């Protein structure tokens, strides 16, 4: 029983650690004209249902590396879907010539670099990685 309690405490600690790590910021370059977005708007963008940035132009989407924890967290919290569901949604668009999925960046540093270079590029990074080079359009805890 004591053992079980320990296990439970350990699990709770892990869950806690996961959620503090899991704070995600949806970002564009600091100079972008894009304005704040709702979870539904970001979800529509990253599932290819819409492609316009509020206040900006046609969005250029960036993904974190496949299988990374932040990518899993982002899609789970924003779209409620796992990686294979997201892959399926994009396959519907790709194979009907209606869209191209987000380009995969190498990580948060790369995403910050790319959003700074193009005002219509949008990505997501850990909240702790946010700095003056980016503008946060949505924070997800």
């Amino acid at each position, binding site marked *: 029983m004591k053992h079980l309690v320990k296990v439970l405490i350990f699990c709770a600690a892990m869950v806690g650690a996961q959620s503090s790590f899991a704070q995600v910021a949806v970002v564009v370059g600091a100079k972008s004209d894009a304005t704040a977005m709702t979870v539904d708007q970001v979800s529509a963008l990253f599932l290819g249902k819409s492609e316009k940035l509020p206040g900006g132009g046609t969005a250029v989407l960036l993904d974190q590396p496949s299988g990374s924890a932040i990518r899993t967290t982002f899609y789970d919290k924003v779209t*409620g879907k796992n*990686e294979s569901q997201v892959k399926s949604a994009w396959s519907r668009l*790709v*194979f009907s010539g209606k869209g191209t999925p987000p380009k995969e960046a190498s*990580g948060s540093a790369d995403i910050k670099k790319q959003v700074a270079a193009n005002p219509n590029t949008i990505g997501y990074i850990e909240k702790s990685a946010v700095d003056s080079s980016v503008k946060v359009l949505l924070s997800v805890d």
Partner: protein
Amino acid sequence: MLALSLTAAAEDATPAPQTPSIFSFSGFGTIGVVQTNTDAGVYTTGTQYYGATKSADFGPDTKMGAQVDAKFNDMFSATVQVFSKQNAVGSYAPDIEWAFVKAKLGDGFDIRLGRIGAPFFMTSDFRNVGYTNTTVRTPVDVYAAVPVRYFDGGDVLYQHSFGDTILNAQLWGGSSSTLVGQDTTIWLHNIIGVNVSLDTGPVVFRIGRMQTRLNADGSGLAAFDGLLSSLSAIGAAPGLGSLGDLSSALSLDDKFATFTGIGATLDVGHWVGSAEITKRQTESWYVSDTRGWYATLGYRVSTFTPYVSLSGRNTDSPTSATAPAVPSYLPPQIQGAVPVLIGAVNGLLGDESEKTVAIGTRWDAGKNYDVKAEIQRISVPAGSSGAFSQIAGGRFASDTDVTVFSLCLDFVF
């Protein structure tokens, strides 16, 4: 720790963004095998030549596609897709499935010109990409009603968001053709169609309607054309006018046809579902009037999505013709010919009614592939062929239940 610092170093070493290639390459496919519990008819998913019986067959579901997209600038892009699937003569010769240029006109308008996927159904655009479907295949009871996969012409796409609802509209027009048998091609001319969908996030509603003029050509039609001219010739005899009418009713020459579909999809929490009803109407008895419907509901548990699907279709146009009474003063050749001709007509007028119950599961076994297994019970009423071909006598003589087992692997890359 070492791994972390290595990753960081690798990130720092990433060169400044280079100009990305304007081309992207992708592909998809399904390897599927089907077996039934009968040798009385052959199960296919449409107009295919080879299919499943008590002997397992890869013919109904196996398919493969490859696509290149080119993005020239923010306004212009192009897509070419090559696709291979067993056709009506048993060949896997690849087709150019898509070949279009697209221009973004702004204000939510896009225009596409070239060869484009024909949007008859809710999932027309990606019905061949097994990975995008919960079920092994889109329900044959509905999706076999139109074997046409693409058209040559153009369309205008419009998208508008209000709040969290997204409106999509499509106006399409052009012409198309599809092989339906050995050297037999059905043409669709003067196509004009419109589709509208409303996407609320968890639920998407869609309605579509199109109209066209049908024609047919190819040497495979020689017997059909011969029958029509015999009917017309004998129909000129006194009292046999109904045979002439039968000839005109069967003819495919410039016949008007419409197709209408209403559907909805659901994707909320663990639940996925879709339902669609469709209606095909033509002025030709040879291409029958049909109604089809299906409803599929699945529940996602981790990487498994077990599902249930119900579907059915009915034939609404005449499925048989009766011989007129031949006036006794007509010559014996005519007396003898009439039942033969009516017999031939009845061989052409098919009833494809059936009902299907399917249970199965999708398993997302890997990052870009899934495995699915399904068992279907197809109930075909007496006098109908259902989804089956090569039945002795053309149709089942009594009510027939067939069990169909399917197993497939779908992938995208």
